[in-house]
């Protein structure tokens, strides 16, 4: 068989080390799906393209490698949009391959035609429409490079059907341009010295780490910095799990649903070193009242993240690993006894003021799930109460073991992302923790999971409601519940079994040992539905529009 465009796609995917892709065929993808038959690349057929995008994203977040999803034109491509936007907001490296109508039909409202490039302009790092089969290899190679380099993100490649079917030569082997090593410039060196000096002189410093630390694989370096300087640290929700050793400097995570200690200490700090975090409104709450006493130094690879939301006295644009390696040499240890004592005192009063750390019975249940699963288990939360309970309770043992959709907060992310994570990291156990709301959103993927026998464990914390919205309505809309009742009439255990997945239901009040053992011990996939009281919420939280020190601990009647 002669080489056609479709073969080039598979050739480049293999060259990039892609072993598995997630996708869904259609009329305009026929040339590509045909040639897949002869390829060692495994194609997982999901039951919705959104799930394919989430699976590629989960694969990327669990492994650090570029995830790949594939769809046909028109509705197939538009179904990827939510997944692409989710990856974009959290800087996750994926390549989305969309097939397009023939070049001769483009722009004529052809069958299943859509301007997917136009639609995804704001949610992709970059995108390409392939006009010439001879450019296909270059474009695909460039896409992978863009997806994973600098600040990672999704790249979309739109490939017309006739290009995929066009005859061509096999792509020439990639020209490896040697990676230019960038020497630290003198002005960079000066700026780092200023940052180090300010940090060394500070009385009440705090380090805040975001998702960028994990993305740049700098977790070990950050630990070195924290321990050398003796500096307390906190993270954003996306940074949870960066530091996995309990070393006494950990304040928890900041933000609307974070730890009160973290929010309070940040508020009192005189110096903040922000690494790989973007001061999102979820982390800072009311900007005008955020950290009023602190001088801020911010290190990030993306210049647009620096100084975008808060005033930064010491900006530093650079690759985090290199920067922290250089910075740690300049940082001195200072015994900041009054600061550490103050932190310790506050820790004693705030951390245990609520049972189960404010996460109630469901939070406690999640810690029991973790105890029942192997140590290197990857946990993937959905969005809502289940997310906050998981992020506050699960102890990450390795940097990529706790995954959540932070920036976009996409419900329905957990189950397909767990699929992708398991396929990317087959040697690790994977558990998806979701609420009933999120579970419904990609429920069709239970069929994919059972078809391929992907051994993901799924915990559905079922309170019959959209829990987080219900909590907000209960607290801030005088308990006027509107449109949050999902009902408990659906027998999710029967549904799961109908999809071919063993399942069981317990109440959060029951002794869970037998159920957890059954789940952890199952060879294949397993779903455990846990009935939770809809009045179980998560506390403390920052009420909307309030500064980060105004956390409330319960419903004020």
């Amino acid at each position, binding site marked *: 068989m002669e080489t056609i465009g479709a073969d080039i796609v598979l050739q480049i995917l293999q060259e990039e080390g892609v072993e598995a892709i997630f996708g869904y065929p259609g009329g305009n993808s026929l040339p590509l799906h045909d040639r897949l038959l002869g390829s060692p690349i495994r194609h997982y057929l999901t039951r919705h393209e959104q799930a394919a995008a989430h699976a590629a994203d989960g694969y990327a977040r669990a492994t650090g490698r570029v995830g790949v999803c594939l769809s046909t034109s028109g509705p197939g491509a538009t179904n990827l949009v939510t997944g692409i936007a989710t990856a974009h907001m959290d800087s996750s490296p994926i390549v989305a391959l969309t097939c397009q109508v023939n070049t001769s039909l483009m722009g004529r409202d052809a069958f299943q035609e859509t301007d997917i*490039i*136009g639609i995804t*302009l*704001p949610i992709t*790092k*970059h995108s390409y*429409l392939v006009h010439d089969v001879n450019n296909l290899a270059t474009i695909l190679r460039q896409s992978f490079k*863009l997806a994973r380099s600098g600040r990672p993100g999704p790249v979309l490649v739109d490939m017309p059907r006739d290009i995929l079917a066009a005859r061509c030569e096999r792509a020439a082997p990639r020209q490896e341009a040697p990676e230019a090593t960038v020497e630290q410039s003198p002005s960079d060196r000066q700026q780092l010295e200023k940052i180090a000096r300010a940090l060394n002189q500070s009385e009440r410093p705090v380090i805040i780490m975001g998702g960028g630390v994990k993305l740049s694989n700098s977790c070990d370096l950050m630990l070195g910095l924290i321990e050398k300087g003796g500096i307390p640290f906190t993270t954003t929700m996306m940074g949870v799990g960066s530091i996995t050793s309990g070393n006494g400097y950990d304040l928890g995570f900041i933000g609307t649903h974070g730890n009160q200690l973290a929010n309070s200490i940040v508020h009192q700090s005189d110096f903040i070193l922000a690494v790989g975090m973007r001061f999102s409104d979820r982390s800072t709450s009311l900007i005008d009242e955020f950290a009023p006493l602190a001088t801020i130094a911010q290190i990030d690879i*993306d*210049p*647009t993240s620096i100084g*975008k939301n808060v005033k930064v006295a010491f900006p530093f644009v650079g690759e985090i690993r290199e920067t922290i390696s250089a910075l740690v040499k300049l940082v001195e240890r200072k015994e900041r006894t009054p600061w550490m004592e103050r932190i310790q005192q506050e820790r004693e009063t705030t951390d245990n003021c609520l049972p189960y750390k404010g996460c109630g019975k469901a939070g406690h249940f999640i810690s029991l799930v973790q105890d029942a699963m192997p140590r290197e288990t990857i946990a993937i939360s959905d969005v809502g109460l289940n997310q906050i309970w998981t992020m506050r309770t699960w102890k990450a043992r390795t940097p990529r073991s706790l995954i959540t959709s932070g920036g976009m907060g996409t419900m329905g992310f957990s189950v397909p992302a767990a699929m992708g994570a398991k396929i990317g990291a087959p040697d690790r156990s994977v558990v998806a923790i979701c609420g009933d709301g999120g579970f419904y959103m990609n429920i069709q993927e239970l069929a994919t999971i059972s078809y391929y026998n992907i051994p993901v464990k799924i915990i559905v914390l079922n309170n019959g409601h959209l829990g987080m919205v219900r909590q907000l309505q209960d607290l801030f809309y005088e308990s006027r519940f509107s449109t949050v009742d999902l009902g408990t009439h659906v027998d999710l255990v029967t549904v799961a079994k109908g999809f071919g997945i063993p399942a069981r239901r317990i109440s959060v009040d029951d002794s869970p040992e037998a159920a957890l053992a059954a789940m952890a011990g199952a060879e294949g996939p397993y779903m455990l539905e846990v009935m939770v009281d809809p009045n179980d919420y998560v506390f403390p939280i920052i009420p909307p529009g309030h500064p980060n020190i105004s956390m409330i601990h319960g419903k004020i009647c």
Partner: protein
Amino acid sequence: MSIEERTITILVKNEPGVLSRVAGVFSGRGYNIKTLCVAETTNPEISRITLTSNADADFTEKIKKQLDKLVDVVDVLDYTGERFLKREMMLIGLRITPDRYAELLQAVNTFGCRIIGMQPDYYIIETSGRRSENDAVFKYFQTFDVEMMNRTGSIALPRHPQKDSA
């Protein structure tokens, strides 16, 4: 922070859709593009987009960072202020009657415009200069019977080439 008209010039690779992407950065961040001009440079692979926007002093730094993220953007320069010469062009189509020919010709000479289209009953005037000058010329010609008008966005160059024109 004072709001004034900022002039930005962006050098971009001549790839399909690049203008969309640039415009998308503005609309996505809530900035308004007041005027826009785009054409190839002497290098046909590179185009120059010149646009103006009403914004505060922070704007240039912020938008430059956002634009630099785009793969097809080569350079972003700020052409606001006294160090730059900024000009626009305008075409005015007006109906004319023989009794007013002389008056029109005198106005054209005084203003330094050009008549580029001449039919017995319809003239097209071309004028170029500062926006305020073009506005004044247009205001005058409204005393004639203006049928149509088309004007460009601003283009600009530094009075003297220098390295730090960003």
